[in-house]
């Protein structure tokens, strides 16, 4: 039987992995975006799990919206990435510090 604890732990591991990914791949914007997708997936895991174990459908509705936002985010993020690459011939994060204070 899959308990709530199982799902939450799995989601925590996924979340931690994505966080680690952000550190490890700190130069590559593309991988950073992927890590964010992974992070959102772990959040979705929590929503689905709670939704099911509480017997409420609303959590799944939120997953639906998160998917929407994530899709929009990755579309725009990738678009920016493409434009960026055209300008700089690079997706190295360390080159992208124009906003540095």
């Amino acid at each position, binding site marked *: 039987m899959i308990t709530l604890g199982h799902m939450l732990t799995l989601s925590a591991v996924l979340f931690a992995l994505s966080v680690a990914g952000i550190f490890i791949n*700190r130069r590559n914007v593309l991988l950073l975006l992927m890590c964010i997708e992974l992070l959102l997936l772990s959040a979705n895991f929590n929503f689905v799990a709670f939704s099911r174990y509480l017997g409420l459908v609303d959590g799944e509705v939120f997953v639906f919206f998160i998917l929407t936002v994530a899709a929009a985010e990755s579309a725009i993020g990738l678009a920016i990435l493409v434009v960026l690459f055209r300008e700089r011939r690079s997706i190295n*994060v360390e080159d992208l510090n124009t906003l*540095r*204070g």
Partner: protein
Amino acid sequence: MNPNLLLAIPMLPLAAAIIAGLGGRLIGRTASALLAIAGVAGACLLSVQVLSALLHGAASYNATVYTWLLSDGVNMQVGFLIDRLSALMMVVVTFVSLCVHVYTIGYMHDDDGFQRFFAYIALFTFAMLMLVMSNNFLQLFFGWEAVGVVSYLLIGFWYTRPSAIFANLKAFLVNRVGDFGFLLGIAGVLYYTGSLDYQVAFDQAPQIATHTLHIAGTAAGWPAITVICICLFIGAMGKSAQVPLHVWLPDSMEGPTPISALIHAATMVTAGIFMVARMSPLFEQSDTALSFVLVIGATTALFMGFLGIVNNDIKRVVAYSTLSQLGYMTVALGASAYSVAIFHLMTHAFFKALLFLAAGAVIIAMHHEQDMRKMGGLRHRMPVTYWTSLIGALALIGTPFFSGFYSKDALIEAVHASHRWGSGYAYFCVTAGVFVTAFYTFRMIFMTFHGESRLDHHAEEHFHDVGWNMKGPLVALAIPSLLIGYFTVGPELFGGYFGSSIRVLDANDVVAEVGRDFHGAASFAEHSVLHLPLWLALLGVLSAWHFVLRRPQQATAIQERFGWLYRLLVNKYYFDWFNENVLARASRGLGLALWKGGDQAVIDGVIVDGSAGAVGWIAGRVRLIQSGFLYSYAFWMIVGLVLILGWLLFAGAGPAAQS
């Protein structure tokens, strides 16, 4: 009494002042002058009408005209208290003002600031009327400051002269010292009675007397009423030029002479006297404060008179005489003889304004020469001026039947009758002052009008007697100077004229004591033969004649023999020296220290620049966190998350665990 009519009294001069001041160039010189004169004449007529109504039994008027604001239960309003005291002052103020207005046409005839001058004196009349007619402390203070402002403007009327600017600044600063005390006194009244209204404060005066004030937490308490009265009197000391705040008045002679007559002799400087008389219910509660008043007044009366002896500037002699006479009035206040003080104020207003205007006429005739050593023998060349100033001088020294005689003699008698602490000293001062007054007054008359002509070439060339628009006011003032004492002494002092507007405790009522020996004005004058002052005055006149006309070389000899004394007097007891070199230097030093140390170093350096610098420094450090790198932002977010989770885990108030 009709409130609208009362309102019109101050408003007429105000309207004239506004029109002449703002539209002076537009309507021209003559129109401005006529307008101002019309305004003041209207006010004068109405004042006379008010006074006569009161004399014929009308009840005094005390009501609010306009409520300015109500703050925390304190009513700030414009109101009029018209009783016999204020009505008398109104008549004196408007009458002298009217004379001065007319006189000004001649005096300022060639001046560019003609309209401006009329605007100022009309404005002054308004301010003085507001002061006199007030029924509350706030309006009193307004009038008090307003006359101060106009005085400032008028002393510096010829603002291109550095000495005038110095003098008006000095007058302003010295008056600030007095006004500070005055404001504290008003605050004290407000603190104890919760009201700015005269009536409330006066009715509660005995209750205030029971309070004790602990200043700055000192154990020894001060009677509250004494503190309040002394504070109020400090205001009067500034405005009425009592020692040691007298230093501005001689310098104020830098202003045009009509102003010296109106503001610095007849009206504004007597505001302090009027104020103390008005506050008599308060002052009566404190013997200490009255003794203070007595001593200050006596000192001023005698020692300022001495200074008149050594001065050669005709206006300054009259100015020192004014100081001395103000001291007399103050002495009367200190002796609880308020009605005598007001009586002397009234007679003095007439004869001193007369003397000033006469001096002004001489100055104009001499083409702006003020040094008496360059005058002499003017008796025949300007007879009207001579005779009128002689009347003024005789009134001033207290010749029987002249107005000054009645007020001064009653005053000396009242001081003599007083048993207050300091009254012995005061009696000595005022009696000796009679001799001094007679001496310097007739020294001035003799030097100016008698003897040989000492006119220099320039003055001789431009000499011309003044016209009737200047002589007219002299005559108009000479009549009351001569007569008013004789006719009013009986009713005003001993006939209960002031009624309830001046309250004196029975134990202090020296005027009543003097009144017991009073059997009509004529016999009062006859009795003076038996009194010391008359003989002292005569002695003064004779010594003046001796030293000025008969043996001038003896005066020089005495001057050389007592060089130190002469220097002391010429340097005005070193008051100015002390003020400029000690007080002013110390305050400049303090100001400099506060500027450099307080303002520049602490406020600018530490607080203003320092806080900005600190923010900048912190921002400079914090800026390093803003690396612009995504991963560092992510890192700090994660750090925050770890901390929140740790808090939830170990300490926080998350949802309780389900059992």
